[in-house]
């Protein structure tokens, strides 16, 4: 095993230990925080595929996070008012079932990523950043002006959605569900990085000429990566909405895109556990420093600056040293 995998194992252990301790001492608030870490980490795992493996600096991943959130909000709100989403030409009703909501969230965010990616991946560098940002902001303003689902104020869902065989209202059960989804996403992302697709995608990040010269089109690789990336972040959005039982246009705002990017950068760009470490650190800081001063984000900014200047590999990279080549 490499040093990085020991660190990952240690982090996993901590992330299991803390909620176990919180559960046995009956601290529901800590459980919720841990669930939040897992869901935000999931959003970061999504972004990390585009940013870390593909080198695509997307400043618009809030678009997918928001779409996932609104998929949940729209389906659940229609279910709670027994008012079908549409009844012509076919009847589509709302639902409170998480698996169905997740499926819709993943499909909708993949389609959005396909569209946004197809257009923005024709550019690169600063233009790519600006175009992805613009798409996110477009959706943000669209939802603000969309009264059907709460407009600017957002929309509350009264009861958390259900998952077969679980009582999701019990915090520890929803926590386990979120952990499992995160675990599966990590597993998938680890395999992806080592698969033919991962090799070609990371090669295209380092040198697009090389990839073209061996007969592989970087654009297609990046587009597929962007779609996979967006769909995972979309799934995280649906879970996040369920955690809060609330959706609002904020999910689409560039602050959200920025925060997801901060998780990845703090934890380590391109590192499997980077988003997990980053999201955990972020929530920990928010929790510890947020209580001391409402200006805690100044400290976050300073930390981010330190990481970018002195510790490019983020938390994981600093602990584990240079990335070793896969197998």
């Amino acid at each position, binding site marked *: 095993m490499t040093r990085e995998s020991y660190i990952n194992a240690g982090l996993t252990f901590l992330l299991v230990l803390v909620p176990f301790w919180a559960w046995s001492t009956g601290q529901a608030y800590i459980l919720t925080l841990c669930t939040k870490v897992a869901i935000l980490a999931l959003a970061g795992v999504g972004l990390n595929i585009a940013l870390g493996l593909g080198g695509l600096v997307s400043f618009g991943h809030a678009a997918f996070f928001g779409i996932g959130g609104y998929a949940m909000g729209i389906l659940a709100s229609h279910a709670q008012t027994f008012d079908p989403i549409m009844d012509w030409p076919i009847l589509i009703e709302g639902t409170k079932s998480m698996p169905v909501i997740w499926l819709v969230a993943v499909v909708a965010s993949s389609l959005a990523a396909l569209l946004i990616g197809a257009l923005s991946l024709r550019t690169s560098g600063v233009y790519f950043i600006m175009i992805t940002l613009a798409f996110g902001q477009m959706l943000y303003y669209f939802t603000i002006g969309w009264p059907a689902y709460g407009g600017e104020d957002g929309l509350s869902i009264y009861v958390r959605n259900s998952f077969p065989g679980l009582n999701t209202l019990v915090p520890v059960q929803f926590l386990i569900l979120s952990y499992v989804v995160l675990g599966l996403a990590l597993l998938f992302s680890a395999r992806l990085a*080592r698969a*033919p*697709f991962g090799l070609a995608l*990371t090669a295209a990040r380092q040198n697009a000429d*090389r990839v073209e010269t*061996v007969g592989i089109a970087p654009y297609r690789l990046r587009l597929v990566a962007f779609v996979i990336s967006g769909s995972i972040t979309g799934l995280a959005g649906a879970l996040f909405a369920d955690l809060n039982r609330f959706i609002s246009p904020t999910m689409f705002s560039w602050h959200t895109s920025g925060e997801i990017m901060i998780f990845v950068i703090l934890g380590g760009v391109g590192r499997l556990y980077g988003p997990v470490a980053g999201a955990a650190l972020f929530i920990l800081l928010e929790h510890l420093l947020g209580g001391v001063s409402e200006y805690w984000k100044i400290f976050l900014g300073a930390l981010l600056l330190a990481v970018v200047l002195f510790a490019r590999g983020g938390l994981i990279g600093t602990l584990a040293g240079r990335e070793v080549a896969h*197998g």
Partner: protein
Amino acid sequence: MAEPLLQTRGITKSFGALTASDAISLDLRPGEIHALIGPNGAGKSTLIKQIAGNMKPDSGTVHFLGQDVTALDTVARARLGLGRTFQISALAMDFTVLQNAVLGALGARGGVMRFFRPVMKDRALLERAHEALECVGLQDHAAMRTAELSHGQRRQLEVAVALTLKPKAFLMDEPMAGLGAGGSKRLTGFLDGLRAEAPILLVEHDMDAVFALADRISVLVYGQVIATGTADEIRANPDVRRAYLGEEDAA
């Protein structure tokens, strides 16, 4: 005479007032090494880029395997069987040497859109990659990070990656640069045998290698081919002596 595999007709490219390619027509026939020589800035790399598809000519066409490929991009030309090495190494620097070679093998085989199986455990790809590394003498450096290779070793890896593609024609832009006498000799011997598999359009400053290898030589000066012929014809050509070889001798 055998049909040319690769042919440029009247390739012209200008950068502002500078004509980097001036109506260049040359061809590459099966089984030959065709060397392209010329002073620095003559437009050799610019021509290679246009043949490989990285740069669009202002006018003129490129034919490969009897097909007009002028409108095709680099990826499509590579798929058709055009293997290319860069003058300035274009490698994935964070990869190991082996990973770069496996990337080539993967490009040649196809099946990039696979998401689960570890690529570095794929027997067929590994075999092809190792074989190519061995051909250029990099087998002992397979596990090294590419960024840690010397300049010459990177050139060798460029050639190895091109080999994994098993192309129908090679475009090589100064593969000997930085190799040193021993490495240069070794690669010369290897390219000598390689021409039987696929012809090589070879841009090279190492005149010993050029005269030892080339079936034909074209001389490019200020974007124009001033002469094409065998080594002896080129040596004897007064224009060439004046424009190019003379300078070399004097230096």
